[in-house]
């Protein structure tokens, strides 16, 4: 595994960042859930806590680790956004990382907060989805033919 980009690490560790996990239902429908616990502990993989075994998201993650399917994670704060595509590598139900994550959950949500397990995602593709960067890339690739004309007027 290689180290995640510094900017992404900082976003992942910031509790104020919006973190969305995307999985695929059995029928192919995308399923998105917000995961406040999502972070990186080793700066190489992404981890997040799962609250319950039977949720749609967790079943999709189990299907992904069993049948080698990818999942997506979106990490956004303000106008900075990343998409990480990867594979679930482990589901932890005990051990030091599990302990760390349950302690974090209890620090955030009180001593009765509970988690069922911790997913470890190994990134395979990291894409900066920040709008400014996307705009520059599109302009370079496709030209400016899709801009609205009013934005091309001289500044008043």
């Amino acid at each position, binding site marked *: 595994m290689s180290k995640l980009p510094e900017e992404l690490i900082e976003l992942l560790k910031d509790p104020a960042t919006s973190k969305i996990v995307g999985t695929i239902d059995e029928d192919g429908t995308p399923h998105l859930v917000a995961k406040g616990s999502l972070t990186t502990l080793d700066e190489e993989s992404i981890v997040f806590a799962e609250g319950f075994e039977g949720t749609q998201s967790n079943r999709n993650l*189990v299907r992904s680790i069993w049948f080698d399917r990818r999942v997506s994670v979106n990490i956004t704060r303000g106008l900075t956004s990343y998409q990480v595509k990867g594979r679930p590598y482990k589901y*932890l*139900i005990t051990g030091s990382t599990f302990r760390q994550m349950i302690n974090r959950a209890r620090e955030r949500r009180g001593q009765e907060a509970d988690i069922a397990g911790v997913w470890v995602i190994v990134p395979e593709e990291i894409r900066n989805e920040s709008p400014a960067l996307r705009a520059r890339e599109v302009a370079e690739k496709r030209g400016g033919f899709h801009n609205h004309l009013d934005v091309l007027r001289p500044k008043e």
Partner: protein
Amino acid sequence: MSATQELGLQALVEKYPDVPMSIILKLDLQRRGISFTDATADATNEPYYRGPEQTAFSSKDTTQRPFPGPLLLRDGTSVLASPVKGQFSDPYSVDYVDGKFFVFDKGERIDEVDFSPRPEFYGKLTSRGVPMESIAWSRPQRLDIYPYRYCHYWDTRDQCKFCAFFTDLKKQKQLAGDSYAKVVHPEDIYETVREALREPGRFSQINLTAGTDYSGDVPFEKEVERYIEVLQAIGRNFRTRRFPSQLIAPAYTKQQVKRLYDETGLSSYCPDIEVWDKELFKRICPGKEKWFGRDYWIKSAVDAVEIFGKGNVYTNFVAGVEFSQPDGFTSIEQALDSNFEACEYFAKNGVIYLSLVWTPWKGTGLAGQKQPPLEYYVRLIRGLVEIRRHYGLASDNDDFKHCGNHGDSDLERLN
């Protein structure tokens, strides 16, 4: 057995794409057994993993190091398999390479695995001076307690023919000293559970089982009283009336089961049928046949659903023992039909019929007998899950993270 060619792990992964590799691997790890390399034995002997000094399982080999507990596969599946030397002819090997554990088969690396850490209550003593690690043992998310370490079926040589439990009681006494008796004091259990619960997120279920004691004015009455006392002691650790728990015990009368439910916080009851076929039950489980026969065991499980509720009563069977000779099944189809009939009957009545893989342990009445091929187990668990799904049953109390014995309940994670 009419198997033409026995398919291995990879071939079965390709043949049954709806069954994940991890679960087929688990079945085969249990079927063929495991061995530890020296590096693994050393690594699991370190403080993070080190297992208990003594368990209820028999072993005459005093050179073996403490076993760290079930294997953990990457998807969280726990695998109850122990590296008992001299038991297995073709075991998988668990090696420790660059700080990680891996399963190997004949030199080929199969996958990364792990073990759960040593629980923090190991190494501590109860107020009566009893080592807590002699009272309870840890699985990845389950606390196992054996309140009575003796099975009276052995007194009359009526023990289950596959059983390797409690056969080395003398050694256990030597290991624990004079403070360790076959009856565990409920206060020691209370204190051990209290200590175990201090560890955040470490346990989500308590499991009780023991050797059978049929004594009492009403048969099994002393045993039921003992379980009630123990469960009440455990229950003092919780603020809820009921706590996630399972009792694997003999078949009791409805009145006895009701007492267990009404007077304790027990949430699940599991009288194990072991083998479904009527004639095989008589031969393989002579003690259960004597006290009081297959029909009684079945009725006890079904009646218990009225008390514990649908899906909270289980009965395990030792999958593969139905092939044991002299009069076991000789075809896979025959064995599947028998087990699916059992699963259907129990599921219709709200009982979960769960499989576990038979190991013909040396020292048991079936030592040296041939196990069925791996494909039998794959077909078996697919069929069992399908039947239970039809009846709206899921084995949450005995699932991938709690027990480590049941490939069929592992497969229910997608339900």
